[in-house]
């Protein structure tokens, strides 16, 4: 007997209902450290953050100083080379980490929290809540964030706030939609129905059963979005809509290197590497988090 193409409720195998609460006996950080990739990710991230905070101590150069020879390849005096205005690249990447990391993490965190809440409410309750929330999401999705950025800059001037608001809004609908999609499926699961029949409140069901199982794609989305957030900030800065022009950010450094690619490969490669390493570490952590939260494991 072959299973039919579309799994119909009647042909679904019985899934063992999950225990209503399953607190892990081991403390969280121990679980985290058991996973090798998570450990690597954590170490990497800590290194990056430390480097960011102690940037002035690590590098003797001033990130704005233009007095060095231009377009020098990596050497012993300039670890990652210099750019077209004679600035030390390593220093700029170090200082740039502050804003890029901040933007990357804060915007995604904001989007995630708001978006997930919207998604759960929307998917779980359905009805008019779903309609209103999802139509708002539609509206925001169809509305180009670029204009919002222009508007924010016009009202508040350039700065970190604009970037955070504009970029958070950009990712909000993704989180809302993915969450909603997952919740739509999950709310029909038998363990949810079972829990409800046992008298669990909506809030309990949403938090204990639905959310943990919906988290996997959300986490992946979050880790991917960090990278996009950093790059989005670059686009905004490039168009004059980002943070104050004096501060270097990774995305901006990459963007400025556009006309020098053939002459100075290091200008495009190293900031890109920095972004990649950050994203990698966050991603590993995210993977591990998902594994831990995956209570079926």
């Amino acid at each position, binding site marked *: 007997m072959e*299973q039919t*193409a*579309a*799994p*119909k*409720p009647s042909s*679904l*195998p019985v*899934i*063992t209902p999950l225990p209503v609460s399953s607190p892990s006996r081991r403390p969280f950080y121990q679980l985290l450290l058991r996973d090798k990739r998570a450990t690597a990710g954590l170490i990497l991230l800590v290194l990056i953050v430390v480097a960011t905070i102690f940037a002035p101590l690590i590098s003797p150069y001033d990130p704005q100083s233009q007095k060095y020879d231009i377009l020098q390849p990596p050497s012993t005096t300039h670890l990652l080379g210099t750019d077209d205005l004679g600035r030390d690249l390593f220093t700029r990447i170090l200082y740039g980490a502050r804003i890029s990391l901040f933007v990357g993490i804060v915007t995604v965190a904001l989007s995630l929290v708001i978006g997930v809440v919207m998604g759960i409410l929307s998917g779980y309750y*359905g009805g008019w809540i779903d*309609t209103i929330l999802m*139509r708002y999401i*539609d*509206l925001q*999705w*169809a*509305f*180009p964030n*670029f*204009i919002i950025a*222009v*508007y924010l800059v*016009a009202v508040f001037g350039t700065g970190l706030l604009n970037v955070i608001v504009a970029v958070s809004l950009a990712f909000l*609908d*993704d989180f809302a*939609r*993915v969450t909603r*999609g*997952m919740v*739509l*499926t999950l709310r*029909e699961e038998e363990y949810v129905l079972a829990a409800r029949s046992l008298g669990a409140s909506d809030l309990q069901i949403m938090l204990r059963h639905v959310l943990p199982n919906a988290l*996997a*794609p959300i*986490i*992946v*989305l979050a880790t*991917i979005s960090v*990278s*996009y957030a950093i*790059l989005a900030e*670059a*686009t905004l800065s490039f168009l004059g809509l980002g943070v104050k022009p004096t501060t270097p950010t990774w*995305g901006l450094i*990459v*963007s400025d290197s*556009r006309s020098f*690619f053939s002459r100075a490969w290091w200008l*495009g490669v190293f900031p*890109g590497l920095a*972004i*990649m390493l950050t*994203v*990698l570490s966050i*991603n590993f952590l995210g993977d591990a988090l*998902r594994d831990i939260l*995956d209570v*079926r*494991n």
Partner: protein
Amino acid sequence: MQRYIARRVLQAVIVIWAVGTLVFFMLRAVPGDPIQALLADVDPGSADAIRAKLGLDQPVHVQYLFWLRNTVQGDLGQSLYGSHVSVNRIILEAVPRTLSLATLAFVISFALGLAAGVVSAVKKYSLIDHILTFAAFIGISVPGFWLGIILILVFSVGLKWLPAIGYEPLSEGIWPWLSHLILPALAAGLPFSAAIARITRSAMLEVLQQEYIMVARSKGLKERKIILRHALRNALIPVVTVMGISLALLFSGAVVVENVFAIKGLGRVLIQGIINRDYPVVEGSILLVAVFLVFTNLAVDVVYTMIDPRIDYES
């Protein structure tokens, strides 16, 4: 279901109207006067004449009503710059270019992404998983223009296989059209294939651990069938969501790629319009994109129900 679709269509129209209205007023609230910029090269005394000709001397709400009436009739107005080419025409010429680029990029990103994600999940922690994961990380960390320039340097300047820039319409022939689109589609599509690979992998991993998969396995069904028929299908919910999202993001990623490869698509039209404060061009482009996105979203919701028939919007 039909009632649901009808309701959604009505809501879609309302959302599109809301987007258009918001854009209309926001544009005029933002500093930057297109006429003054136009006159930077020209006679300040003709400011009033030009404003009158373009209808910009009316109070804002009057302009809005005109705009509403014209838009409903399909007339998106005229560009404020140059020979005041009709916005319909500007968009009509730009859309096929972006559509070609985005579609090709979409196909590439999906084919590659899904395949990579499935393989990665099935062979979790193997060498191929590590390689694909690594490639995916590179994919999502590099900006589109970076990839585009590298592709040009390698394939156009270095190997001389493909043209570096430009666009040829389909009427010029399949190969001219395709050869100009391959590099930009790769530049736009590869970063997304990386994202799709990650999400697919994660979703597949979830599903592969489900009990019904183990049940199917224990029944002796072929592994490939299990993966493709059952696992992938159930993993598709988040993937389909991403499909819907990625179309929109592809569009905005296309802007950067369009710039690098000198393709005048809708993305560039829009950005240039915003920079120039060319109101009708911006309004028209955004409306078109909004229509596209909102109805795509509706399609995604309908596809959800096809994948998982337990989902019922009516309850």
